[in-house]
């Protein structure tokens, strides 16, 4: 019962603090939006398009073919310089410059080269060129057919071009068909389904660490000392605090899960498994928070070092980018922090329709982390409370 009084007091203090609420809900949601918007469309090449200054129908057709190509995300630029700058800044993978004399050259039977600017080293440039090539080739096929028909039958080019378009619809070309073999993704889905679970992992942890600052504060104001002067065991105090921060972590998780599901359409997968994962992760965060509360000397230290530590661990553990992208040794090193296991488990739930059994191993590791952290935290907090003079 006494423990519950401690829990109640702590919850009331935190929930009354508007800054804490900002960090608990508003900031994570804002970051989820920014990252969610950023990591969508990774399966398309980003193409800048500079249309011809005087575009005839052929040039216009090429432009619209490029704009409608499913593998390309195009953005039109007014001047070549703007497009070039965007490419240099890596805002684009390639820039297609539709040549000015395209119509005239094609009608005159000349071959045309469409210049595509790319970043010569690195990046997705060459892949983008190939994708543009495929669209241009399809366009060129129609031109070749129209010119051939025009040469053979003496009909005007524009008529045969129209015929070529019709013929294309009925033709049976050699098709390239893709088939997805590996549906078992190593990554979270793109967009909000990527950013929401990773930020859930990141922020529940960071927020729990920040909670440690409140524990340090209470320690220093002597409230604990006063409580211990009452017939309350140190064990009870520690337990009460732990429950409070656990509840806060669960509350924060539920808010993020709820907002993710309602506002961002995140499918959280098997509810039982997701629930277990949220709970275990809240325990890990609470353990880390109480430990911080026991180890640090001043609340300022926690405020300063907490976020840096949280972000660093989050990066190591794959909250900021998928661990499947990084070198092997770094991926292994990343699994030394609990975040990696949590993100792995979310990936299983969201991308592979996993159930509780599928994430049992991850849950086991996380539970071990939680147990270790909580034990260490309660031992050291109790030690602080019962031995040091000024707590």
């Amino acid at each position: 019962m006494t423990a519950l009084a401690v829990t109640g007091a702590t919850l009331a203090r935190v929930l009354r603090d508007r800054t804490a609420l900002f960090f608990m809900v508003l900031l994570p949601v804002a970051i989820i939006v920014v990252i969610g918007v950023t990591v969508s469309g990774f399966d398309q090449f980003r193409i800048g398009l500079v249309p011809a200054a005087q575009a005839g129908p052929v040039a216009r057709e090429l432009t619209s073919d490029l704009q409608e190509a499913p593998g390309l995300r195009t953005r039109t630029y007014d001047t070549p310089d703007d497009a070039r700058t965007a490419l240099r800044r890596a805002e684009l993978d390639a820039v297609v410059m539709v040549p000015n004399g395209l119509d005239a050259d094609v009608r005159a039977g000349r071959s045309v080269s469409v210049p595509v600017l790319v970043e010569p080293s690195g990046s997705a440039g060459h892949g983008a060129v190939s994708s543009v090539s495929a669209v241009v080739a399809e366009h060129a096929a129609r031109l070749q057919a129209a010119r051939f028909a025009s040469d053979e039958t003496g009909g005007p080019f524009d008529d045969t071009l129209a015929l070529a378009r019709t013929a294309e619809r009925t033709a049976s070309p050699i098709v390239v068909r893709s088939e997805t073999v590996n549906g078992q993704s190593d990554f979270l889905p793109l967009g909000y389904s990527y950013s929401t679970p990773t930020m859930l992992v990141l922020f529940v942890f960071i927020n729990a660490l920040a909670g440690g600052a409140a524990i340090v504060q209470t320690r220093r104001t002597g409230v604990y000392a006063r409580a211990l002067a009452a017939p309350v065991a140190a064990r009870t105090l520690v337990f009460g605090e732990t429950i409070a921060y656990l509840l806060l972590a669960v509350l924060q998780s539920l808010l993020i899960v709820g907002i993710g599901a309602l506002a961002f359409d995140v499918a959280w997968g098997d509810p039982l498994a997701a629930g277990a994962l949220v709970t275990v992760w809240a325990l890990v965060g609470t353990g880390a928070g109480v430990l911080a509360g026991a180890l640090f000397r001043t609340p300022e230290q926690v405020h300063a070092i907490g976020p840096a530590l949280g972000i660093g661990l989050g990066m190591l553990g794959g909250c900021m980018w998928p661990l499947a992208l990084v070198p092997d040794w770094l991926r292994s090193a990343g699994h030394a922090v609990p975040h990696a296991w949590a993100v792995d488990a979310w990936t299983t739930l969201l991308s592979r329709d996993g159930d509780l059994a599928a994430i049992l191993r991850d849950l086991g590791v996380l539970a071990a982390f939680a147990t270790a952290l909580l034990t260490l935290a309660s031992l050291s907090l109790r030690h602080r409370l019962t031995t040091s003079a000024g707590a």
Partner: protein
Amino acid sequence: MRVVLAIAAKDLRQRLRDRSAWVIVFLAPVLISALMALAFNNNDEFRANLGVVDLDRGPAAAGLTRVLKSPELEGTVHVRSYDSEVAARRAVDAGDVHAAIVVPKGFTESLHGGGAEPVRVLDSVDYGLQAQLAEAVTESYVAQVNADRLSVATAVAAGAQETDVPELAAKAALLRLPEDVRAQGLPDDPLKVISYFGPSMGMFFVLFTVGFGARGYFIEQQQGTLDRIAAAPVGRGALLIGKSVSTFVYSLAGLATVTVVSWLAFDASWADPVGVAALSVAMAVCVVCLTALVIALVRTEQQAQGLASILVFALVLLGGNFVFASGTTPAIRTLALFTPNGWALRGFTDLGTGVRGWEAVGAPLLGIAAFSLVVVAVTALLLRVRRTP
């Protein structure tokens, strides 16, 4: 002047004595940039490991493999051959290759007319871009064949005799597609991850010190030392400048540490060291202005801490310190230009891609200056409204 220096030196001494300040301004950004540099050591390069299954065993299929191994795609595409489709599927499934192209039996024959079985690309959900590339290369390769077939069909539709088809087909086979794509490399340097995220993390943590500075002011007010300074023959101006100088020096030291470490240890590159310095100085000035704003806005240490955190996170989120600005949507890139750090990062992006001098940092410097001026104006207004002594 001596008084200003005395105040600045005292503030700096206090900050340097605070170990968490060291962590925040010097250690954390360096460690996090290092982590990013390590994580994206080679991964800024796009690579596609493609499997090829040649069931055709004719010259056409060999031609496709040759395209994949052509000089333009060298360095991007790595080809591995598989004997059977089953083996290729297994390889894609295991992640050994990102995608595999299966050239069907009878592919070579289909080029000369007749039934065409589709060429299939086996892909994996995680490597959409690589699948896209495999598909595109294959499509480009079959494009000529398809174009020739289309030419014959169009000629027939335009009135050529059906009986002439074999002759037409022979003629069409000599045609070349009238449009092709010519890739041109840009002359500038590609942007390295560390050239962006080094300064980005530096700015993030230096902005964090706005909270420190503002809190420090209220702590001084509380412990009475501010009164003591006011009782000395020290003008408010000298006090303000002294405190600003220390914040400035501290912020600049933080930014300088990250940029120098990124440069020396992690190979970040910027075209123009003077530009880097100018951006860092501008950001440090801006941190001073923001600190003053927070002090003018709030009344207590706790409020200072809270407001500073919210302000900093809002700026950092909008400005693109957490996500690569160039990778986001144009809307977010536009929003970033309402923040000083967003401007600075644009400057670092340009410097990191070989642009020098005013062209790279001119607009960013003006942007940061405009932001700082607005902050100063608001601060001055607030101080005028609530002047106390």
